[in-house]
């Protein structure tokens, strides 16, 4: 072994990763060639998904993905902010805060399939009751059930992000605000939150990225219908859940190619969201160091 060889190995590994990543994307493009070539952009806007007649349109799934993710985000945002603020501003180092933190970390690591299992027994019957009361077909599963469980799944992530960024607020700022006679509320709203707003925005984007690609819980709860969802109570499908439920049963190469293209679309959407989230983090931490 010498330094030349050592760095050669490390550089080789680095190049391998880059090649692997490029290969991943190229594979999806190459394998979706059959549908990319024949229907082009029509694939994205197409409303019909029928493996028998070989008509493949992804729009119902794109809508399903965006609907469930954004509803979940809207539901979980106030709860996550409240939990993050409680743990980051109110009960920071007490026993309660430590226990709550351990607990939240545990929940962040519970697998998606377990959340799906829980959703089927706890959330679906509840939604069924709501649907019966509202006079719509009581499927139980559907957009609403998936969004609710997704919301619960991203709460641990978003609240610990909020708590972590609040740790970056210098205590001198808090003390200054309190010394000037500010109430707790005025301190949190006027000093702490403005200081970390870009960090919270980044956390929201990263949580959205997770929700968009979430597969198992949604596959178990959304009802797997290949049509455009028309209301909260509709059954539907997301990009990820179609792939999970149909890939192994694909009857034709075109069907499989269509699903490769769904994977490609999903990858591109999550890329954009995650990239934006990371850029915000970089920008905000860079700006703070420069101050």
């Amino acid at each position: 072994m010498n330094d030349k060889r050592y760095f050669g190995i490390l550089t080789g590994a680095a190049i391998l990763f880059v090649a692997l990543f490029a290969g991943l994307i190229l594979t999806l493009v190459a394998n979706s060639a059959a549908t990319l070539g024949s229907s082009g952009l029509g694939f994205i806007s197409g409303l019909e998904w029928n493996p028998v007649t070989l008509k493949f349109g992804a729009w119902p799934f794109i809508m399903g993905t965006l609907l469930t993710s954004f509803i979940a985000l809207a539901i979980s945002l106030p709860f996550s902010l409240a939990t993050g603020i409680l743990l980051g501003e109110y009960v920071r180092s007490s026993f309660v805060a430590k226990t709550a933190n351990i607990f939240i970390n545990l929940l962040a690591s519970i697998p998606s399939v377990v959340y799906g299992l829980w959703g089927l027994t706890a959330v679906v019957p509840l939604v069924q009751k709501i649907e019966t009361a509202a006079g719509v077909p009581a499927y139980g599963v559907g957009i609403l059930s998936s969004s609710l469980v997704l919301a619960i799944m991203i709460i641990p992530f978003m609240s610990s992000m909020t708590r972590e960024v609040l740790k970056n607020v210098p205590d001198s700022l808090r003390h200054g605000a309190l010394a000037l006679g500010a109430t707790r509320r005025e301190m949190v709203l006027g000093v702490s939150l403005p200081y970390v707003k870009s960090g919270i925005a980044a956390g929201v984007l990263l949580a959205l990225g997770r929700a968009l690609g979430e597969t198992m819980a949604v596959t178990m709860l959304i009802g797997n219908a290949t049509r455009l969802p028309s209301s909260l109570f509709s059954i539907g499908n997301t990009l990820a859940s179609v792939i999970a439920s149909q890939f192994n049963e694909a009857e034709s190469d075109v069907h499989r190619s269509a699903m490769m293209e769904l994977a490609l679309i999903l990858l591109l959407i999550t890329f954009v969201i995650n990239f934006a989230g990371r850029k915000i983090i970089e920008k905000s931490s860079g700006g703070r160091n420069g101050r």
Partner: protein
Amino acid sequence: MADEELSILHGRRRRKNAFFTALVVIPALIVLGLLAAIVIEVLVKGAGAFSASFFLEAQKPFGDPGGGIANGIIGTLMVLGIASLVSVPLSLAAALYLSERKGRALARLLRLVIDSLQGIPSIVIGVVMYAWIVIPMKSFSAFAGGIALSLIMIPTVTTTILEVLLLVPSSFREAAISLGAPHWRASLGIILPAAKTGILNGVGLGIARIAGETAPLLFTAFGNPFMNLNAGKPTSAIPLIIYDYIKSPYQDWHQKAWGAAFLLVLFVFLVNVLIGAGGKGKKGA
């Protein structure tokens, strides 16, 4: 300002403050209560399924008494083992490159790749591994499942290792080099041992991250109702059994699904506890 005006203003600010406190505390309590309910439900329903045969016997067709998920436990251990064997050396190399060659264009590109890999939905990785491994091998396999999981594990392990490598004081390296040690020796003989605990933590976090992954296994390991020890053959895993069993109409299988879920949560929890005991715990994956 007159005293009364001041006290009115004071009262209003106090009420606003109390209202805001309620706005923070009540939703947070709802969240913690809900999360507790989930854990308790998994614990209560899952523990009921535990028995000797649950751990020792493979799956049985519906109607046969007994049966367990031993094939899934072994399968999970197999795919986790393969994933660790592949991802740990690669992650180490990537983290070493990032810490020793920072500033280079390739290092920036590598960082971007690792970050992007972290955000890829796991099902997409499953689909690609189907094309890369399952099709050429003409069979689903534990090997394909392990490779798929390794790609999901790599970003977690790499970033954790990189963090601890950057924490090792540069005086360590300088001391080694001043004694005449070549660069590689300083890295592998001094820096890595100093960062040992952090590296082990990274591996633990990575394993906890992938233990419950289901989506990438659907098209790679596929599942197998029989005990299988051949890495080249379709293999079951605990999460795959949960998914299969809950779709069935049988009460007994539902109970086993809960048992499997509890076992999985318990495993991830224990790994997290071990990480916490081995050093300063990091926030969950």
